């Protein structure tokens, strides 16, 4: 296996009630690349993310992260290897402040949390990295606000800050621009662009603008399988990909995705 | 082994199980559909028994008493739903537990204020008060057989209601996906009220069934309701089938424990200690069963995934 492969997925199978959601998927993600996964609805992208993060365990196949088999590793242990994820539907802790949310993310990285005495929120070892991550996503002024009432766009930013705060090798971004307006969306894309090259990013995304702007390589999934993997230009030209999008020209698909 | 005794005890267990099912079926429906924890379900059991006792004593007829006590209990169920329960569906379980805990206090005290502290007897017609012979040696109280038959009939009726009627379809849909039911244009408020009242009537019926055996007494529902909760948790919340199987299981375990555990205990402890420990340990058995089942299947035997 290539030295630069950070995440290897081999012959992954998962079915729910007889229907295969992942059907023999094989995919390699290279070190420091932005690897986008696209595909029509029901292609099995969400199930893939769930299996990579350990929320759902595969029926068969193998997931290898930096040479280590993590196929059946519990979800909570994967972040310690340097994996982090964001959620398709915003997943933050609503009744805590923005800073506390990010502090938790830092804390997760900083060894065990069986420390019962010192206050966490005034601990510089936690708050400094947290504030750095918040500054990175442009949310530093909201640090003391309770997270729940913030806007959707701010929630997505916070989500990203929590991912960054764990300083991961591999970031799994599940539709980071979902539900965003054009302006927020553009800001998110430029924010992700600034991360490019510093970490490996797996980007599951519907917004083709974002995908083609960010991705080094793209994998197209259909019916639980990868039908094509390659640079954006290769994918644009791929025949199978065009068929997958029901004969539509991929560029039309991009356009229609943009309008919805 | 005394087979006659064993048979009689199995019947006793079945009878207790049936009674538990009457209570648990309503509880599990209310739970499954409204996600509502109703500790006061046992109070409706008590109310049913008291209504039946008073009406039977006034009208000098158990049947009339039973017939009139059912709608009377339903009215109480409607009132409870309207005044308290309805406002709590959107709240969390903690609020349910507390409010219905308060309802228990209210019901127990009101009952004592109205009926006094004495238990109320429910006289049975003579033909129900005797015994029936099953085979040569086995003789069981007629009334207990009547409870079994009534309970089975109600269970069958409930099964038909849930699987074969429009209301039942809505109930099933509600149990699996509440949002979907409201999306289908069903009047959720009305559906909830109906389910709550069905549960109330079933609980009341259970109280009326046990009344002629134990009398209607204050707080009679407070212990059995906990057992009924154990039943629905074992069976899996929202599952009528699970409630039925678990109720029979728990009924049998309870009676068998009370019948045979002391004999077992006497093999390795003094008779005096065995007599004391056996009833307590047999009461413990059903909780142990529950813990074991939840340890293996955290959502019960027939429970929905991921609850």
């Amino acid at each position, binding site marked *: 296996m290539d030295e630069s492969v950070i995440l290897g997925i081999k012959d992954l199978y998962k079915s729910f009630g007889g229907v295969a959601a992942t059907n023999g998927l094989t995919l390699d993600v290279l070190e420091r690349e932005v690897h986008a996964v696209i595909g029509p609805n029901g292609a099995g992208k969400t199930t893939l993310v769930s299996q990579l993060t350990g929320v759902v365990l595969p029926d068969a196949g193998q997931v290898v992260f930096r040479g280590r088999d993590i196929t059946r590793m519990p979800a909570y242990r994967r972040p310690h290897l340097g994996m982090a994820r964001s959620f398709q539907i915003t997943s933050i802790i609503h009744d805590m402040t923005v800073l506390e949310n990010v502090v938790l993310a830092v804390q997760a990285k900083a060894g065990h949390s069986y420390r019962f005495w010192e206050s966490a929120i005034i601990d510089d070892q936690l708050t400094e990295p947290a504030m750095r991550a918040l500054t990175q996503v442009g949310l530093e002024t909201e640090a003391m606000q309770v997270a729940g009432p913030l806007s959707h766009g701010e929630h997505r930013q916070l989500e990203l800050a929590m991912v960054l705060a764990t300083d991961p090798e591999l970031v799994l971004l599940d539709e980071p621009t979902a539900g965003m307006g054009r302006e927020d969306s553009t800001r998110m894309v430029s924010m992700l662009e600034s991360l490019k090259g510093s970490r490996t990013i797996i980007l599951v995304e519907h917004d083709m603008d974002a995908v083609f702007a960010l991705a080094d390589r793209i994998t197209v999934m259909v019916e639980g399988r990868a039908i094509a993997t390659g640079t954006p230009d290769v994918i644009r030209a791929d025949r199978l990909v065009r068929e997958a999008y029901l004969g539509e020209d991929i560029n039309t698909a991009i356009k229609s995705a943009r309008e919805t | 082994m005394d087979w006659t005794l064993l048979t009689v005890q199995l019947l006793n267990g079945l009878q207790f199980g049936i009674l538990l099912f009457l209570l648990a079926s309503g509880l599990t429906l209310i739970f499954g559909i409204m996600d509502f924890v109703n500790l006061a379900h046992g109070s409706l059991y008590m109310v049913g028994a008291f209504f039946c006792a008073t009406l039977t004593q006034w009208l000098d007829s158990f049947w009339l008493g039973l017939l009139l006590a059912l709608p009377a209990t339903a009215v109480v169920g409607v009132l409870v739903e309207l005044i308290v329960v309805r406002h709590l569906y959107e709240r969390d379980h903690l609020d349910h537990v507390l409010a219905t805990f308060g309802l228990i206090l209210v019901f127990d*005290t009101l009952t004592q204020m109205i009926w006094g502290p004495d238990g109320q007897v429910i006289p049975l017609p003579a033909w129900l008060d005797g015994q029936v012979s099953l085979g040569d040696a086995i003789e069981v109280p007629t009334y207990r057989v009547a409870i079994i038959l009534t309970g089975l009939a109600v269970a069958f009726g409930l099964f038909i209601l849930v699987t074969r009627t429009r209301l039942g379809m809505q109930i099933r849909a509600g149990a699996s996906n509440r949002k979907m039911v409201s999306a289908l244009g069903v009047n959720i408020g009305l559906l909830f009220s109906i389910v709550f009242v069905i549960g109330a009537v079933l609980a009341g019926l259970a109280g009326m069934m046990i009344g002629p055996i134990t009398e209607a007494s204050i707080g009679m529902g407070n212990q059995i309701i906990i057992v009924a909760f154990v039943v629905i948790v074992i069976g899996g919340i929202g599952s009528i089938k699970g409630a039925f199987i678990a109720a029979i299981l728990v009924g049998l375990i309870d009676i068998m424990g009370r019948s045979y555990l002391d004999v077992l205990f006497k093999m390795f402890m003094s008779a005096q200690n065995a007599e004391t420990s056996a009833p307590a340990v047999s009461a413990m058995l059903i909780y142990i069963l529950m813990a074991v089942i939840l340890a293996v299947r*955290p959502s019960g035997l027939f429970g929905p995934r991921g609850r």
Partner: protein
Amino acid sequence: MKSLTLRGWVTLVVLVALALLPVFVSMTGREFFLVLATRLVILAIAAVSLNLILGYGRMISFGHAAYLGIGAYAVGIPVYYEIYNGFIHIGIAVVVSAAFAFLTGLVCLRTRGVNFIMITMAFSMMVFFAFVSIEEYGGDDGLVIEVRSEFGQWVNLENDTVLYYVCFVSLLGILYLIRRIVHSRFGMVIQGARGNEARMQSLGFDTFRYRLVCYVIAGALCGYAGALLGNFTSFISPEMMDWTRSGELIFMVVLGGTSSLFGPVLGAGLFILLEEILSGFWLYWQLIFGIFLILVVLFAKGGIDSWLGRRPER
């Protein structure tokens, strides 16, 4: 010193009143107030410990009274064998409670929602029946604790005022302890898991284990309260572990306000005062009590703590 909010004032006034109560009692000779206040303070400790899991962790335990019972029996049983050393009593109470919490927590914390409520209750009922079944320690009749725990010559619990101050100082200590825990890294994880458990796991927290530790701490603290209760009542029966007692503890917490440090103390206080006053003047006081409970749930979300101007939840 910065200016105090209404909440702060109430907290201060209640604590000062509790601290000075024995002086008032010795001036007026109304010993019964000391009895009442001791009970209040002990149950406040139990409520505060319950709040650690219920309020901060959203683990609705319906079996917390079991720890009160375990703690009290940890005094009663050694005394029955004429072991009077209080350090041994407290040690047994805390260790056995923690062990019980650990073992039952392994099962309970796998479940969610109503199943959690019911299985915590089931375990408390098991302890209830276990003590009912032990003839040696009085079974259903309970056990009279003839002598209170001994702590050397300096602290004589047989003196009611000393017992009261031991309880009061314990309450202060445990409040401080929980304050530290809640703001610590550990407390952050527990509160994070309350808000969004899936997220906490994806961040890399083994929430099950953190919750288990929290559950054990709460159990141990309540066991400590139980040991005080056993000393106070000089009597222990399985009845103390009945599910209705656990319900009362929950009520105290909710009445005072969940996820606030001092709320459960106020809740326990109001609960005991109401119980005492109402039961003194009307046989059917539980009617009023029940209605009050329902009204609190329906209309007073957030409990006393929110009446004093705190937002319910943060």
